[in-house]
């Protein structure tokens, strides 16, 4: 109950903020940070709970974005329909990749997800209808009341999506699904021998992850008014999602949120003040530092320093 009240308060606060005369740039930056919250939360469902590393965040994110563009171009579909279709395509991709490789060891799944990024990118480069390699300019539809600008509306939308994603991750963590996934992570043989349906659970986790990532990608073309393969299928999404979960802590749904808020804000600041390259470098260095020195992430550090909290 406490969770739902705080989420409702958060949602209401975001809505109020979008109607207030806060600087437009805030929403522009916050949208990207929120995207990382959704991506990291989704990544953690398979990566954190089950221990299967997904490098393919841009593939799932990108299939969502391109599904949205396709629907928009084809029949001027409303944003809600674009998101639903993107989630479906993301889920299908997750299920497909999972079917192909989740029976194998984790490293093969990880490499297969890298492969999916490049195959998707190549397909989109060669598909003229959605812009090909040059990309496609998109004309945003009119803003719906009560929002003053389109970015503000997307901001509220992304907050809602983040809340939905967090609720799903929290449900999975606390239910039998999460217990089964943790059993898979700790020892797959032992889990299988004790009657845990390991493959089915992994597939479920991979499908949910794909759906969330696909949904997170759907509003991106509208946000940028533009789509292009190289930046859509960029590996920086991989390192963003993976880095957020590891830096925040992978064992609890709160971890990826903390990580994404921190990392996302830091990236926004560094990209503006220093440069885009330094920003990626810092994320990489932070990732390696945490993985080596604080494998339980920030949550683990907090728990170690405050032994009596919980």
């Amino acid at each position, binding site marked *: 109950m406490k969770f739902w009240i705080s989420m409702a308060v958060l949602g209401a606060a975001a809505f109020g903020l979008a109607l207030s005369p806060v600087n437009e740039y805030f929403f522009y930056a916050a949208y990207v940070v929120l995207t990382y919250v959704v991506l990291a939360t989704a990544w953690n469902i398979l990566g954190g709970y089950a221990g299967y590393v997904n490098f393919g965040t841009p593939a799932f994110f990108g299939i969502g974005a391109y599904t949205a563009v396709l629907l928009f171009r084809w029949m001027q579909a409303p944003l809600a329909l674009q998101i639903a279709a993107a989630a479906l395509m993301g889920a299908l991709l997750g299920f497909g990749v999972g079917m192909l490789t989740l029976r194998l060891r984790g490293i093969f799944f990880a490499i297969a997800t890298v492969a999916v990024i490049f195959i998707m990118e190549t397909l989109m480069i060669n598909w003229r209808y959605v812009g090909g390699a040059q990309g496609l300019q998109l004309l945003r539809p009119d803003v719906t009341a009560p929002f003053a600008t389109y970015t503000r509306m997307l901001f509220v939308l992304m907050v809602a999506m983040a809340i939905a994603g967090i609720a799903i991750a929290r449900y999975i963590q606390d239910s039998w699904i999460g217990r089964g996934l943790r059993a898979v992570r700790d020892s797959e043989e032992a889990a299988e021998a004790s009657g845990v349906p390991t493959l089915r659970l992994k597939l479920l986790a991979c499908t949910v992850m794909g759906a969330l990532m696909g949904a997170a990608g759907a509003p991106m073309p509208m946000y940028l008014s533009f789509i292009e393969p190289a930046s859509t299928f960029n590996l920086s999404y991989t390192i963003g999602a993976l880095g957020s979960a590891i830096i925040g802590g992978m064992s609890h749904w709160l971890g990826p949120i903390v990580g994404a808020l921190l990392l996302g804000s830091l990236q926004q600041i560094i990209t503006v003040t220093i440069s885009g390259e330094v920003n*990626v470098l810092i994320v990489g*260095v932070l990732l390696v530092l945490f993985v080596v020195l604080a494998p339980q992430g920030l949550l683990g550090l907090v728990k170690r320093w405050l032994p009596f909290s919980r």
Partner: protein
Amino acid sequence: MIFSFDLLFEAILFGILLGCFYAAVSIGLSVSFGLLDVPHVAHPAIMVFGSYCTYIVAGWGLDPILSGVLLMPAFFVLGVLIYRFYYETFERRGADAAVRGLAFFFGLAFIIEVGLILGFGVDQRTVQAPYIGSSLALGEYRIPYRMLVAFGVALVLTLALTLYLSKTFTGRAIKAVAQDEPALRLMGANPVRIKQWAFGIATGVSALAGAMLIIIGPVEPALDRVYIGRTFCVVVLAGLGSMTGTLAAGLILGVAESLVLMFFGASWAPAVAFGLLLVVLGIRPQGLFGR
């Protein structure tokens, strides 16, 4: 799509040369991932780093291949250090190591890539040598000398490593670690020291592979990304740890990529390795010559 037997022949010829090159750039990974089971996704990044080191050394007036050979001892030490670090921080702690080991190498690849961008910029770099830029005319076919040089070095490298692993005492010890580590431990050998040595060799070979990479074409920091697909495709298709398999798998990938390049265009070529990799993982994950 224009089809003719001349083009087909040319594509296959080019594919064989390219395939040997792919085998050579994958052979280090075949040792580190195939035999030692280290999730070394930073292998292509280290190779590109080798290309940039070659670029610097060759800039002093040395031949690029000679530069690559001279860099090998330094890369050997680098490899020993990387493995030592990986072992102490991840492998020894067991259980959770898989996820964090992968994340570590991925982060390492990113750091190398961005470090190269900060150091050299995003521009492409090339080296100079007499055999770069000219080509051998064979009847109506023209084969660039740079391809032939890379082909030759690749062949020597692959054969040398295959012989080393099957004929020498240390080589056999490396294979023994891959087959049954606990047994080796029971016989009083130290598997960590053997693995450290093997990882050093795999990384040392990457220096020469990097030199070939910059001979065969211009190099840019982000080049490692597409080579993740090519190297892992070759190693998985070969069957983990099989050296002869690596050569065969490299040739298959080289010819496949060359055919796609010739008949469908350059924009489809990068997907060949990744597509082949997915197919192999789906149909025959133990590879062609798998154990």
